[in-house]
């Protein structure tokens, strides 16, 4: 198992490296540059800007510079001299010496910010949304699946599965505006757009102020994003429960006179949730990408919103930083799933 994880980890590094290379190539294959404006800047200014961000160097050098800045930890004295030296991880060692690691570079379009700033401020917002959506998905999906499965072929089953197919079919992009209109504009219960949390955050993403002022912004987008996932969970839970309930050990449990409640809770449910747990990984990945769509629709200042703007602005460091960040989430989610599989089902062994 240890060897398997080590191998997967190495593979992850390869993936991230190739991805960064592809991203870099795509960025620079597009004609024009980040400082093209409707009204052209004087060529001296462009030259100076390019020199400042090392955009006048050959491509291979730029790429190596990126790798060097992002990967190599260094020890430096004093505060960072400019935004260009600012790092995501900055640990004070002794006196005035700092250990600095992961410098993803400045943002070209907003001069006073770095990619690290964007990650520090926008990623927690996306994370809050994702966690809320996943919680909603589980809280709705599992009970719905259990009820539908236990009462198979009754009105409850049909009702639950109809809601599920509704959830799968209505994409965030269609559900979003409808929710905004009903709850935001007509009933005025919830604010149609925006986000209620501000840094600093506890544990990187939990806002200090967990009052209604935070939740009222969360409910609608999290529901829009979570509904589709809850439908998938509900269908999976139902199918798996129906399969488990026909197993011999359930019959044994019933035969020895166990109350039905215990049969369901202790024997059927626990085993039927195994496939559900394993699907949570890809689901997490789907939610991570989903936050991206949801943020656009509900005007949430998360990472996704920045990505689209940065692509149109040719903000190279922001594009690279965001893509790698999303990729890390996806790859880690997949890794966790594969390990959970082996842990939950001892029949699976990785060599």
């Amino acid at each position, binding site marked *: 198992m240890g060897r398997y994880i080590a191998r997967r980890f190495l593979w992850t590094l390869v993936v991230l490296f*190739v991805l960064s290379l592809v991203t870099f190539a795509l960025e620079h294959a597009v004609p024009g540059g980040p400082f093209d404006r409707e009204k052209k800047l004087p060529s001296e200014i462009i030259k100076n800007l390019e020199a400042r961000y090392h955009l006048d160097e050959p491509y291979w050098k730029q790429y190596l510079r990126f790798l060097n800045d992002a990967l190599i930890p260094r020890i430096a004295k004093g505060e960072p001299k400019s935004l260009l030296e600012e790092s995501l991880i900055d640990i004070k060692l002794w006196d005035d010496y700092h250990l600095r690691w992961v410098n993803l570079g400045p943002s070209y379009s907003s001069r006073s910010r770095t990619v690290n700033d964007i990650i520090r401020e926008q990623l927690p917002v996306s994370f809050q949304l994702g966690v809320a959506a996943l919680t909603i998905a589980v809280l709705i999906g599992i009970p719905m699946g259990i009820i539908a499965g236990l009462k198979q072929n009754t009105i409850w089953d049909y009702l639950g599965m109809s809601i599920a197919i509704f959830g799968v079919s209505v994409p965030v992009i269609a559900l979003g505006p409808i929710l*905004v209109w009903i709850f935001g504009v007509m009933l005025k219960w919830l604010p149609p757009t925006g986000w209620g949390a501000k840094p600093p955050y506890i544990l990187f993403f939990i806002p200090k102020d967990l009052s209604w002022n935070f939740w009222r912004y969360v409910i609608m987008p999290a529901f829009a994003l979570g509904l589709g996932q809850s439908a*998938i969970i509900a269908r999976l839970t139902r199918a798996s429960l129906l399969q488990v309930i026909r197993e011999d050990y359930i019959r044994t449990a019933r035969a020895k006179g166990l109350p039905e409640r215990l049969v369901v809770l202790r024997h059927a449910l626990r085993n039927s949730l195994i496939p559900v747990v394993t699907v949570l990984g890809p689901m997490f990945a789907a939610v991570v990408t989903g936050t991206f769509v949801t943020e656009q629709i509900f005007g949430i200042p998360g990472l996704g919103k920045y990505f689209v703007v940065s692509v149109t602005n040719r903000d190279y460091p922001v594009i690279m930083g965001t*893509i790698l960040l999303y990729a890390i989430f996806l790859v880690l989610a997949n890794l966790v799933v594969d390990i959970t599989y082996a842990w939950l089902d001892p029949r699976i062994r990785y060599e």
Partner: protein
Amino acid sequence: MAESSRVEALRTALPQRRKTASLWADALYRLSRNKAAILGGVLVILLTLTAIFAKYIAPYPYDVQDRPNANSVPSWMLAVFPMMKSYAVVSDKFLLGADYVGRDMLSRLIYGTQISLSVAYVGPIIALLVGTIYGLVSGYFSRWVDNIMMRFVDLMYAFPSLLLIILMMAFFRSTFAQSEPGTFAYAMNKIDERFGGMLFIFIGIGLTAWMGTARLARGQVLSIREQDFVMAARAVGASHLRIIFRHIMPNILGPLVITVTLAIPGYITTEAFLSFIGLGVNPPTPSWGSMISDGSQAIRTYPPQAILPALALSITMFAFNFLGDGLRDALDPRLRGTQ
């Protein structure tokens, strides 16, 4: 042998007309008994016909602007949305009203089917074509070919595909737009303009759609490759190509068709989202995604402008989901009710 005698018993018990049913005819029969799937299928056919004959069905062209009637609302709609009474321009010229520059909503919705439906057909075709061939080759040949090919799929799989599509769209749009006449890029751009920006959407979706199918096809091939009938074919001297396409492919097509059909709603949403953020179709070509985006700007004042395309998108997704579920149940009854 109990199994085969049971199959025989079942076969004689069934009505005579199903005696010669092949896998596909059998599946079609089961499909025809599934009400939801039939509903989905009928809707898909209707939507397809709408897309093909959009020119004749739509009361107005999709791009003609009737400025005086911008944001106009038909009188029946005021009954549904009474809040608009105080400020909206009421005009019954357009059945579903007009958008912010006075284009007929109904016509734009009708033309919008062309975009969504073509994505719904082209996406799976690319996924099936590329993925199946890739998976067949990878699964059939020696271990190292398989190894290299699958590592590549793993690599592609780990990419955040939506983000990559966005980056590629930006790349296509700006690179190809600035190309010299006579080059390949120029020709591509011209074709793309002809189709309202859809060529690049197809390429973007195609580049990320085939990996799942390739993996599945490979897995299927691996399980079938070692079976006796393949060995028999090899023994009588059949060529690789013949074995792959004649003996293996028909046996793995069922699960592939299921996965590809179930993926259709995903392609439709991808296109809608791309158009929503302005990287999809070129204006004024109407896509439901770009219509939702325009409508969302006016959600406080003219809600139908966002809700109508959202409904159209949802109905299309329903249709394909019902059809996909039905197809899965029909082609592989063992999977009924799962996922």
